[in-house]
């Protein structure tokens, strides 16, 4: 079977790697490049634990072949914090107890962070709709919505 040399820019760092066509983006990130932030929950495109950004769009990296993203810019949860300092969304997840086991959190953060880039002052319903593709088996979502709402509120104040 064929193998392909691809290049991926992950959180600003360029990587060259060789993948089989069937290698999923999430496996390339985790196994080949060591970015273990994106988790594999369901492996069927339902749970969103594997959400990363590819060229600016939140997608599920278990439902994308790595070879398709050759040349793309990928952002993972590792890119949110600045040298160990949590970004505002992460800080609000901590503040609001928006996580328990934490398994869904990397995907939740990437979806919410992408959503907040365009949404000004979103309603709670809009927030819930945005995270529809991210399942959490622990929190009951309430605190996650709080965290996203507070992040949007703080961003609004600082403008």
């Amino acid at each position, binding site marked *: *079977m064929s193998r392909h040399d691809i290049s991926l820019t992950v959180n600003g760092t360029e990587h060259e790697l060789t993948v*089989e066509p069937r290698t999923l983006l999430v496996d390339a990130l985790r196994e080949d490049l060591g970015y273990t932030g994106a988790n594999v929950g369901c492996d*069927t495109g339902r749970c*969103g634990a594997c959400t990363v950004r590819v060229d600016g769009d939140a997608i599920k990296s278990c439902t994308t*072949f790595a*070879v398709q993203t050759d040349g793309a810019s990928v952002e993972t949860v590792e890119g949110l914090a600045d040298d160990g300092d949590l970004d505002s969304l992460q800080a609000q997840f901590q503040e609001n107890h928006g996580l328990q086991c934490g398994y869904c959190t990397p995907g939740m953060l990437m979806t919410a962070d992408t959503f907040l880039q365009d949404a000004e002052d979103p309603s709670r319903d809009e927030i819930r709709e945005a995270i529809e*593709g991210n399942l959490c088996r622990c929190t009951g979502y309430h605190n996650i919505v709080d965290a996203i709402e507070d992040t949007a509120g703080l961003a609004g104040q600082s403008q």
Partner: protein
Amino acid sequence: MHTKEFDYYRADSVDDAIEQLEAHDGAELMAGAHGLLPRMKTGEESPPALVDISHLDGLATIDRDGDTLSIGALATHADIAESQQLKQHSSALSDAAGEVGDLQVRNGGTIGGNIAHGDPRSDPLAAVLALDVELSVQGPDSQRTIDADDVFHGAYETAVRDHEFVTGLGVPVQDDAVSAYAKRRNPLSGYAMVGVAARLRLDSDTVTDARIGVTGVADTPFRLPAVEDALEGESVDGDIVEEAAGRVEKAVDPSELRGDSQSSGEYRAHLLSVYTEKAVTAALNRAG
């Protein structure tokens, strides 16, 4: 989870993609891969080669061209759900695109692939039927168009042939038309358990033409002529919508509808009547 092994080719033009399809037996086109990849993981499909068309330029545009809105095959569901032109002139399609999966899926999945894949639970297919969307298809030697009513042949079976490439969709712009999509979502998969798109053309209060497209209910998306006939020529005041939707249960045979753990065929027939009423009402509410 790994899929079976396959060969990968990245196409640099539509013609190149078609040549690759011809050169590699059993090869399939892939854009967002959101229909195909999950089915490759379960082993329901295992194409020996995939031709990646996701990087082709100029196929993701949405443009008005006279009385037609042309949508490139690589427009994502998110692009379609957010397009102001489509919201205005073909709301049923923007509604349906906004109902696909979730945010991430709408960012990845493309309309051309969605239609060519022909998943009988897919939301946009109902709107394709209701809005009389024409598919543009390119093959090895020629281009052709396929009328909405001729597209769907069965579960995952469409009129798009093996070495053909769906390049785009044409949605007719009709200033006297209103449309909407109403859906009962399967809570597990997010697909339509029942999805109904309704498009009505109106002359003040009178329905001059009706098209109802249905997805999620049977192995093939279909129209509801009995309901369309009941609406046509009628004034939209009064009980006409309820009466028209009431014809659904006589028009379909529950034993031929999909039955699964969420819903029997009988229950789907009932839901179909309810969601037909919702879709027609929502369309009429847009008449302003």
